[in-house]
């Protein structure tokens, strides 16, 4: 029981990393990135492809990928996605959905359908005994810590820095923010750039913890989305809490029957939607 609880929370840490980017992009510009999961998978494959160039160092390849992700996110938002924003959600949905299909098929062409993983130098098999017959993996624990740190960092960025103030301003009222001298298109581009860095971290850790395959994206998107909705929109800690709930629900489901884990996660999401549509920790702006 305690074991299931701990495993669920640790799984939730990974989902938090998947979900934070979605939460950030929706919070700042009401953009639903339906390619979120595919970008996670794409980032993982970039790390896998770069690893041989840096003496097979997973850490080195990941660190190399982060600035690439930042630049890619900035460029994508600035020159593609900004043109799709507006009252009508359709253009941004179709464009990101189209990107999702393109990414899946490009990866399929380049890397085949086989699942791949990243070598973490034995870190993924190391464990810590907690006593009472409960042990936790060192890697899941590190992922959990990383999720906590990134959530705290994003929340602090939003609450305390000038950039965070700009994010909140364009989110509340784009026109007024622009009258005050902000260039909303650049602010949006920075938001997506930061979201993509978090996405890249999530992708690399996913590939270290289990495997990634080109067709994994949509499922990861659904997990990220469920975490955001369960947690409530507009707060990163809410997203983190939502990811914990989702991780726990899936882990309990897996314990009951391996075929039903994801199904139980979906049902908990739908139940939250019915019972508490505003989510656990809502702080919706505008």
């Amino acid at each position: 029981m305690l074991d299931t609880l701990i495993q669920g929370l640790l799984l939730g840490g990974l989902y938090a990393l998947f979900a934070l980017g979605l939460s950030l992009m929706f919070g700042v510009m009401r953009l639903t990135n339906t390619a979120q999961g595919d970008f996670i998978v794409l980032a993982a494959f970039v790390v896998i492809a770069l690893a041989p160039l840096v003496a097979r160092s997973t850490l080195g390849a990941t660190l190399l990928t982060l600035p690439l992700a930042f630049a890619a996110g900035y460029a994508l938002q600035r020159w593609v996605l900004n043109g799709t924003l507006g009252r009508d959600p359709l253009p941004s949905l179709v464009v990101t959905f189209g990107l999702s299909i393109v990414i899946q098929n490009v990866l399929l062409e380049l890397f085949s359908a086989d699942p791949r993983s990243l070598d973490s130098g034995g870190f993924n098999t190391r464990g810590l005994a907690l006593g009472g017959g409960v042990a936790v993996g060192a890697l899941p624990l590190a992922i959990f810590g990383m999720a906590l740190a990134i959530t705290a960092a994003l929340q602090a960025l939003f609450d305390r820095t000038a950039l965070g103030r700009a994010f909140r301003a364009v989110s509340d009222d784009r026109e007024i923010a622009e009258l005050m001298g902000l260039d909303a298109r650049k602010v949006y581009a920075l938001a997506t750039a930061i979201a993509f860095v978090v996405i890249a971290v999530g992708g690399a850790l996913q590939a270290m913890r289990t495997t990634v395959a080109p067709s994994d994206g949509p499922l990861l998107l659904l997990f990220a989305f469920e975490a955001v909705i369960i947690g409530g929109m507009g707060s990163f800690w809410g997203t983190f809490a939502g990811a914990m709930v989702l991780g726990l629900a899936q882990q309990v489901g897996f314990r009951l029957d391996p075929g039903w884990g994801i199904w139980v996660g979906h049902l908990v999401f739908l139940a939250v939607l019915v019972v508490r549509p505003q989510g656990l920790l809502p702080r919706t702006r505008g």
Partner: protein
Amino acid sequence: MTELRVVRSTRTSRVALVVGIALVVVAATMPAWAESSWMRDFVEIACYFVFALMWNLLAGYGGMVSIGQQAFFGLGGYLMLMLGNLAGVNPFVAIPLAALGTAAIALPVSWIAFRLQGGYFAIGTWVIAEVFRLSFANMSIVGGGSGTSLTALRGIERATREALTFWFALAAVVLAIAGVYLFLRSKLGLALLAIRDSEVAAESQGVDVRRTKLWVYLAAAFGAAFAGALYFVGNLRISPDAAFSVNWTAFAIFMVVIGGIGRIEGPIVGALIFWALNRAFSDYGTWYLMGLGLIAIVVTIFFKQGLWGWLQQRWGWSLFPTMRWLAAAPSPSPSSSSEVSHAQHR
């Protein structure tokens, strides 16, 4: 004093009606002379088309962009199969019954889905479709994850089965177009167009926004389920991954966006283009799908109105006008008279 009257059709639309009826009459005789592979092709593209038309009704007119319409396509297929295999109903009778049953299921589904708006509605409906997929994958009575065959058709001769399937598909296409067209020209359709243009303004004029949207959602579920049931009657085999694949909605989005969203001609043009591309390039697998994704992106960014929207803007064509013009001339032609459009296309 000038007499004012409401004009609701154009010369193009009247010509289109005559040509359309002639095409349908010719097509109806196909089982007598056409090869069975042509009829199979027609049934398949008809299912894609009806499904896309329903997605267009939901997203283009109702403003509800869903990535989860495959839930109803798959439900239609599975309900038809269960009625046929388990309850002994003739599969052709089971098609409309499955569609009705799916619409009934769509009602409680809407209570959950309508909690979300915009982009989050889109992904929320996708989660709901996944719940149905996983549920059927765990139901051993319909073959679980690997699916099962439609055994209920065994007693029917092949030629009869193919002809019946074809006529059902033709009827589905005609009824879907006519149904959507008449719906949009009705009072409820006018309300829907008003909601699309401005929800707040429509509500202030007495339109029951929630109720109208619910009707559209249920109608789209019915149509999608009809297409699904028909598709799996033609296919004879069903599996959760095929029935609830997100590709159904992906292809529908492609057809509607290419043809032009929010107009009935859009999915027709889109389905023809999709069919042609599929014929020519589907052997290229991943490259073909990459191409479809790229085309959808480019069209969305640079040609928001789609191909038909562009043609309409250029030449004022409208095969299925849902507009109301006020005309002063005794024999009016909408393009020349001074007109007031009440409910316009995008």
